[in-house]
């Protein structure tokens, strides 16, 4: 077992002459809740896109549990164990809540079922569908979404859509969960609730979590360690408390 669940080495990408991310080295230990913060346009979501192979890095590489991940396709990356949510929610809007989660379960080996078995409606198909449905319900229960399981995803209120995205990502059985601004648009009460949920996920699923967030209260309460990005480069890194008191970080946030 490698020391770090996720490790990036000199990771960077430039679009033309613009260095959207440059020489980013992040090391995340198992069961950590790790925060990625920085002003708007600092390259946080770019890092997520690099880690899920939506973008191909122009420099450096990254490892999941010691295995190099660079150059895979996004679906392979997901199967290896990196799952994510999106800054602007991207659910399958016209599918029901439970089916959204079931899509996440598709590639787990324990629910494997060939197209032929599925088309010929062999017993295995029904067995697997039933198991997937049960598993999906179980996940929805954690997020208090079981009641809404048969409504369309687009009809859920905003906060619940965010939760459903996390449930769908968890369904793919990741080793590390990437949350892109999970608290965006939430009121203080919902944010507090979300913090509890994230801790619960860490403990219950033995999960490692990397999250992007702007809400400093949320970050300082939840994250064990932070990386602060500014203009695509690492400004500061380390334990949350120390980092948030770093004059460079304060300057980048407040300006001056």
């Amino acid at each position: 077992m490698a020391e770090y669940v996720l490790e990036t080495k000199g990771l960077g990408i430039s679009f033309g002459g613009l260095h959207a991310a440059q020489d980013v080295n992040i090391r995340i230990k198992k069961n950590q809740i790790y925060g990625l913060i920085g002003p708007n346009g600092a390259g946080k979501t770019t890092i997520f896109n690099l880690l899920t192979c939506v973008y191909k890095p122009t420099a450096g590489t990254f490892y999941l549990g010691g295995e190099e991940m660079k150059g895979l396709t996004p679906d392979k990356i997901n199967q290896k164990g990196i799952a994510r949510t999106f800054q602007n929610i991207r659910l399958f809007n016209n599918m029901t809540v439970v089916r959204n989660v079931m899509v996440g379960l598709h590639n787990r080996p324990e629910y494997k079922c060939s197209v032929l078995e599925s088309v010929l409606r062999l017993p295995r198909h029904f067995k697997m569908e039933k198991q997937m449905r049960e598993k999906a319900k179980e996940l929805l229960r954690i997020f208090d979404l079981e009641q809404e399981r048969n409504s369309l995803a687009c009809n859920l209120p905003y906060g619940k859509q965010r939760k459903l995205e996390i449930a769908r990502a968890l369904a793919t059985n990741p080793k590390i969960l990437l949350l892109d601004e999970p608290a965006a648009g939430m009121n203080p009460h919902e944010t507090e609730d979300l913090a509890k949920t994230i801790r619960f996920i860490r403990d219950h699923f033995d999960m490692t979590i990397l999250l992007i967030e702007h809400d400093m209260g949320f970050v300082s309460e939840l994250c064990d360690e932070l990386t602060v990005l500014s203009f695509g480069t690492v400004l500061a890194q380390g334990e949350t408390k120390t980092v948030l008191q770093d004059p460079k970080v304060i300057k980048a946030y407040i300006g001056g």
Partner: protein
Amino acid sequence: MEEILSTLINGLSLGGIYAMIALGYTMVYGIAKMLNFAHGDVIMVGGYLIYVFMATNNPLLAILLACIGCVILGVCIEKIAYKPLRGASPLAVLITAIGVSYLLQSLAQIVFGSASKMVTVYEFGSVQLLGCTIQVSSLVTLAVTVAVMVALTMFVKYTRMGRAMIAVSEDKSAAQLMGINVDRIIMVTFAIGSALAALAGLFYLLKAPNVFNTMGAMPGIKAFTAAVIGGIGSIPGAMLGGILLGMVESVSYKITAIAPYTDAIEFTILIVILLVRPTGFLGKKRREKV
């Protein structure tokens, strides 16, 4: 009365053929977000393949081999022509599709010549029903179409692959990030569409036993119209649009005064529907975020 019944059955069977082709357009559009204008020409290739494989003197075998041939063709077209353009501008893909269409037509002309070929797949004859003569081939077409549509709906609704298809059509990259192999889903879509096109080719041959290199063009355009009328991207929409167009065509042919304007009438319906309901009957409204 007899006239009405035979017009109805003709309309339904013609509509079934359109629906079957329209399904190919609509599924590919829904999943790969592209208009595959070469789809009509796969019908033509299907026709020629049936012509070639009828040398076996076994209609069922010929149909099966033609379906397999078209599936291979469809998957190859996707791999060679469209896949490298994934992420390119929709216009580039559209032009490529038109290019593939002409390529197939020209290749067919080089291989089989420009004169049309006669193919008699099977003589079904006709039956008397409530005092009117009905072609059995129309009934067969109708029955097979209904069966195919039910099977396809079940496939999309109740299988894992179908669910993955819906997910991809909703949000391709989100689906990919949930571990779905999008390339594979697109390949399967092209395979299904092409198999349906081969069947459509067969039914055309049952109606009029001639194969020629541009035979796919008009049905292709009509079926595309049907897909748009029904709401492109929607599977029930393609079925509805196809049946509607087939009925209009069949009725219009029966009325001597307007028979010569049948095609014009069909496309006028398209224009009117696009004006009144730009998303078609069952199409989804997409609000673009700004």
